[in-house]
């Protein structure tokens, strides 16, 4: 146990440092609450108009209007928690040669990157996700979690989402450095993942063939899985299976990240500069 604690210590330090680093920019997060509020708001109006066409008490894709609104609110709140810029950071380290300073540290680069992402998420949870969630609950009729168990599983699923996004972004960053327009690739990634994660629209609205493919990909576990758990649309064995898959994807993508890192590290030449 002490050996484990000793091994974890440097990573806790990385998490703590990244927590403190973004604390310095906290003003941005006050304004950032508005960004998330606007994003959820535009979808509030779109869904309101769509449900209005269908008439009072209608369901769309298996969701009532309050459920859909709750899906939107919990989805954006969760995004504010799991979001990280691991991809951008790792890519710019490689680009600017700062990676040398990372490589000389006796730590695992992937584990270090992930602890930094989690440190950032811990900050976001307190000063970002909670205010955003609170604002959304106050302004819009968001439904409470379906049951205490649903809340507990949602929190677990949300934590797995953060790990999943960290694992995905580590891979994306390593792929992006092979092109010279890293920022362009990362910008496209945001937009594509907003769709594939189910953040914008639940997967139930996708055409059957697309849905069949999507369930075999990791992205839905970013938003669709936790969203359905909160609403009680996935309970018991369903929820357990979804969480199991989510966790399996985290492990699989962490392994993929390790392979990509090995392939990248072999190619890296650090210049004296």
């Amino acid at each position, binding site marked *: 146990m002490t050996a484990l604690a000793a091994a974890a210590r440097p990573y806790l330090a990385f998490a703590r440092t990244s927590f403190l680093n973004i604390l310095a920019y906290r003003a941005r997060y006050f304004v950032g609450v508005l960004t998330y509020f606007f994003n959820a708001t535009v979808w509030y109006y779109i869904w309101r108009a769509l449900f209005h066409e269908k008439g009072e008490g209608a369901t769309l894709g298996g969701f009532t209007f309050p459920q859909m609104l709750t899906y939107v609110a919990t989805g954006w709140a969760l995004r504010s928690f799991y979001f990280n810029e691991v991809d951008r950071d790792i890519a710019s380290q490689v680009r600017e040669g700062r990676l040398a300073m990372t490589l000389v540290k006796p730590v695992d680069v992937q584990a270090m990157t992930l602890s930094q992402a989690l440190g950032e998420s811990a900050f976001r949870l307190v000063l970002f996700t909670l205010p955003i969630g609170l604002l959304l609950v106050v302004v819009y009729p968001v439904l409470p979690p379906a049951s205490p168990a649903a809340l507990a599983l949602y929190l677990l699923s949300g934590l797995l989402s953060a790990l999943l996004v960290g694992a995905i972004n580590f891979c994306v960053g390593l792929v992006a450095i092979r092109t010279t327009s890293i920022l362009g690739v990362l910008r496209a990634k945001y937009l594509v993942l907003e769709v*594939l994660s189910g953040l914008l629209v639940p997967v139930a609205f996708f055409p059957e063939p697309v849905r069949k493919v999507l369930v075999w990909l990791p992205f839905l576990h970013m938003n669709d899985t936790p969203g359905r758990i909160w609403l009680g649309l996935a309970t018991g064995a369903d929820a357990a299976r979804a969480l199991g898959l989510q966790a399996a994807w985290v492990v699989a993508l962490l392994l993929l990240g390790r392979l990509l890192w090995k392939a990248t590290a072999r190619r890296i030449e650090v210049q004296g500069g």
Partner: protein
Amino acid sequence: MRRVRFHARLLALYFAQYAKARLAYRADFAAAALASFLGTAASFSVVLLLFSRFPHLAGWTFPEIVFLYGFSLLPYGLFSVVSSNLWEFADRYLVEGRFDRILLRPVSPLFQVLFESFRLESLQEVATGAVAIGWAVSRLPDVSPLGLALLPLWAVFGAVLYVSVFGLLTAASFWVEDRVGLAPPVFNLMSFGRYPITIYDLKVKLLLSTVIPFAFASFYPTALALRRGEYLPYFWAVPLVAVVFALLNVALWRRGIARYGSTGS
């Protein structure tokens, strides 16, 4: 008039120079353009997915909604092509001291900051928007030809409006050292203009028509083509709103520059 001609020529030169440098790495530019297109296509596909299931949304047909969304990509794409330096202005120009170099040249500093680099791949948004409009027009029974003919010009006014609003926010960095990042939430407000304004409450409509007048960039410009008589006064006000905000922007930059003291780096 001579100054306008001079700046137009300079803009063409800046653009040609940048495009040449960028296209030297053709495969890389193609990858960036493809990535950019994938992003646009993903967001657009959600709209298609959602609205194609409903014959009407708040009084708008599916082709009309595609028209609106398609048009919104024109001013947005043009704005994206030129706005990249605005985002990094405080860091790259003020903190790192590049602004001193800008001030040495006998050309408007704002002009130089805007046009020193371009995001060429965002031109795909303009093309994607045009294709969407074309599709919508083929499905719409009655589109005003004059309204269609004016769309490109109104798209430019819309882009000017976007640039001016973000230019104003950027100019704040001449005064406020600790940047609180007002631009991101305002940036996200742009997406409100992609949908029929009738879906919003009065307070949102007011916000989009006054303080942050993005409805003038992407919604009202479609009123003439789609024959929405009730919004015609707003349609004709688009150039005026764009020019007023552009003048405000230029004035604020002037005052900011007058106040500017170099970091000396």
